[in-house]
């Protein structure tokens, strides 16, 4: 066995200060926190007691850090894009501004989100671990990164803090912590913001960070997310033709479909959709939107890491796209636009594949992913009030994941009974 190098120094220090933190020590109320940092720094020297004497060197810390690494391209681009949108909104050609100045602007805007998310979230996690006298769970490493990436950069920090606290406490710890939660905590934070402070989460004016001072947002009424634009058009169309009114008269679905088709037919011209940024811009991510969701390219980089390392399930991702493609046939926006708009890809890669809140069975994963894709587009097409279907689709399917599993397991039980009976 190769002796790990540089081990002496940190180990010595930790040994020295440890007595202060263990039970009876002056700072024993920080025991969990100390242990978290200790195991963060040095792999615990614990050995197996029961069962298998040897263990794989893969642990939850490693799994989580891989997801965090997969999120980094999106984060970095999110920072750059924040700056880009800012300069574009100011009327400057962002391309003319120094790359680093653009990035630096966004960096300074996004960094506070990260600090608040990790600070509040980990603070709560450490406190609860201490109350339970357990080790701190590393699940929040990922959640804490996800939350800043799925909110608008303009979100007030106190709101973010409240949302994080809600997600960690109500979304996770109430159920027993990482691994026991029913809903994806990051999405729960977003849903919390979405329904509590809709003014900050939807609409035309919130996605680009303003200049500074007194008139941050008002100047930017032009800047909108692609989805909001679609929604606006839809809403206008609906108003003008009293589309909603007609639906209330219990019209058949076909009629609704044909109406949607009409609306979009007017929008769509030879491959490009007026009112929307170009497909390439949306794919690369130079559009307004939540910090991490805009660049499909960067998300795909992350997806490649997740799939290569086997952390996320390709079945969920694939079936999610399949479900979306099927549903997209009902509307007039082609699927390749749906895939690059809004949070679809981000949700599909990082949210739907959450191993805790998704189904445990492989067959279940196909169904789960498919329905998420389908519901996302369904919500986008038929509910102009909520342009972003991904969040609600994932949360809804999280709720149904145990039911899907139940059905798959019931089928498995029947199959096994049959098989045993066949053996006579």
């Amino acid at each position, binding site marked *: 066995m190769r002796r790990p190098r540089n*081990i002496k120094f940190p180990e010595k220090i930790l040994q020295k200060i440890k007595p202060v933190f263990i039970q009876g020590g002056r700072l024993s109320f920080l025991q969990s926190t100390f242990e978290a940092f200790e195991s963060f720094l040095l792999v615990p020297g614990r050995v197996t007691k029961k069962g298998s004497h040897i263990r794989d060197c893969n642990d939850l810390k490693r799994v989580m850090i891989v997801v965090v690494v997969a999120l980094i391209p999106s984060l970095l681009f999110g920072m750059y894009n924040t700056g880009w949108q800012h300069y574009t909104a100011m009327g400057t050609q962002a391309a003319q501004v120094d790359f680093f100045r653009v990035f630096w602007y966004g960096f300074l805007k996004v960094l506070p989100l990260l600090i608040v998310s990790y600070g509040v979230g980990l603070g709560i996690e450490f406190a609860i671990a201490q109350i339970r006298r357990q080790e701190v769970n590393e699940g929040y490493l990922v959640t804490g990164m996800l939350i800043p990436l799925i909110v608008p950069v303009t979100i007030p920090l106190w709101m973010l803090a409240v949302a994080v606290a809600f997600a960690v406490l109500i979304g996770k710890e109430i159920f027993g912590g990482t691994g026991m939660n029913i809903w994806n905590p990051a999405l729960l934070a977003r849903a919390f913001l979405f329904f509590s402070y809709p003014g900050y989460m939807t609409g035309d004016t919130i996605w680009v960070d303003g200049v500074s001072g007194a008139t941050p947002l008002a100047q930017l009424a032009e800047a909108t997310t692609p989805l909001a634009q679609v929604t606006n058009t839809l809403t206008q169309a609906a108003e003008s033709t009293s589309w909603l009114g007609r639906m209330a008269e219990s019209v058949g679905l076909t009629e609704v479909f044909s109406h949607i088709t009409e609306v979009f037919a007017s929008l769509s011209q030879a491959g490009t959709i007026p009112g929307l940024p170009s497909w390439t811009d949306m794919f690369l991510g130079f559009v307004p939107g939540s910090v991490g969701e805009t660049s499909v390219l960067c998300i795909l980089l992350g997806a490649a890491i997740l799939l290569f390392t086997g952390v996320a399930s390709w079945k969920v991702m694939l079936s999610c796209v399949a479900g979306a493609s099927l549903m997209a046939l009902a509307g007039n926006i082609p699927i390749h636009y749906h895939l690059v708009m809004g949070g679809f890809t981000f949700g599909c890669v990082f949210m739907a594949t959450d191993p805790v809140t998704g189904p445990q069975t492989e067959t279940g994963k196909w169904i789960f992913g498919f329905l998420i894709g389908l519901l996302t587009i369904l919500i986008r097409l038929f509910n102009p009030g909520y342009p972003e279907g991904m969040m609600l689709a994932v949360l809804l399917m999280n709720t149904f994941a145990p039911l899907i599993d139940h059905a798959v397991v019931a089928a498995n039980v029947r199959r096994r009974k049959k098989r045993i009976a066949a053996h006579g």
Partner: protein
Amino acid sequence: MRTTYKLKKGLNIPLKGYAAMCSYLNETGTLYEIKPTDFHHITPKLLVREGDAVLAGSPVFCDKSYPQMVCTSPVSGTISSIVRKEKRRLAGIRIVPDNKEEKVTFAVVSPESLDQEKIKELLLASGCWMWITRRPYGTPARPTEQPLHIYISCFDTAPLAPNYDYAFADEEEALKMGLRVMERLCPGRVHLGLSDKTSVHSVFRRLTARKHIFSGPHPAGNPGVQIHHVCPAGKDRVVWTLTPLGLTVIGRLFLYGTYDTTRQVAVTGPALEKTGYVTCQAGTAIASFTQFPRKQGVEIRAISGNPLTGDSVGEEGFLGFHHQQVTFLSEGYHRELLGWARPLRFHRFSAARTYLTFLSPLLGKTAQFNLDTNTNGGQRAFVITRDYQKVVPMDIFVSLLVKAALAKNVEKMENLGIYEVLPEDLALCEFICPSKIEIQDTLKQGIELMIKEMQ
């Protein structure tokens, strides 16, 4: 009749320290121990006292619910001490051998001349009965029941497992006789599981029974996995399993009229300077394996059995009743700086792709690893449950079954297949689990609950 099964799921852990094909004779040991804990889910009742003289084949303890089921001494000598653990639980019976090798003699008869009851009586009286394991639950077979099938897996795929072709090369006669006995107990339904890698010259190829060929990584060699595909066990479907060693012990009883647990034990592990096979009895002291020098400067864990399912017995411990392998691992007390965050850790093995260890052989680094007993992380709740399925070649939802066992839900366990698995079949799940959950122990408790509830 021969059938072939290609199993894809599973994992061969590339551990250093396979036993070299070189046999040594164990010099007569100075102390032996019979451990009732080697038999799962029985309540032992002591039949000897300290100071009693025993012969090889004399009963030392029996099962409380079936007193005719006795475990007999592998050597002749004197009972030196009775080892008890917490709540006076009987943990071991130590025997100092007298080196005279006196044996209880049983009648030498051909199995065909006896009826089933007579064979059972002979097996019970000689202690050979304890070599038969029953499924479900993995307890010793019950004398009152008739099995649907008898299954013998003729290869072991566990990490560093002994090569059965080598270890049983001289046991053809005993194996054949053992099979004849089994054939009498369960006519026409005795199965042999062979590996596609079993040598054409192997003694197992020359045995006659229903043969099934299995290919694939560990746990393809586990009888549980093979039975799952060939003749699944169930609530009312009792299947008996034997190891080839059990078959030889039974064969020797009918050939020579003695109880003889002699076996070739693979002495293996990355913490040894030299490995090999040694010929010895059940309950031999680990300390007597002096031919195999341990590595210096590291704390060593001695395991009777393989590294996935064996018992940590320590250097002062003894070889398990069924075990044909002893593994020496170094204890993993070391602490690695930011180990989990290092991009590459070529000297550590991971089946997951999160560490790029699968690149190791490609980059000319080691393809065999020196695994130690470090847990490589703290215990957490279930998070990544999908990976378990990749190492279990059975139609069973591992994470759901283990959760049902945790929740003590008997009906769910039953539906999810508790009858078909033993902890050893899910040992690999425990190995790869990133949450470091003690799956084998949980399952064992689940099985205990099932036994209690089903009585």
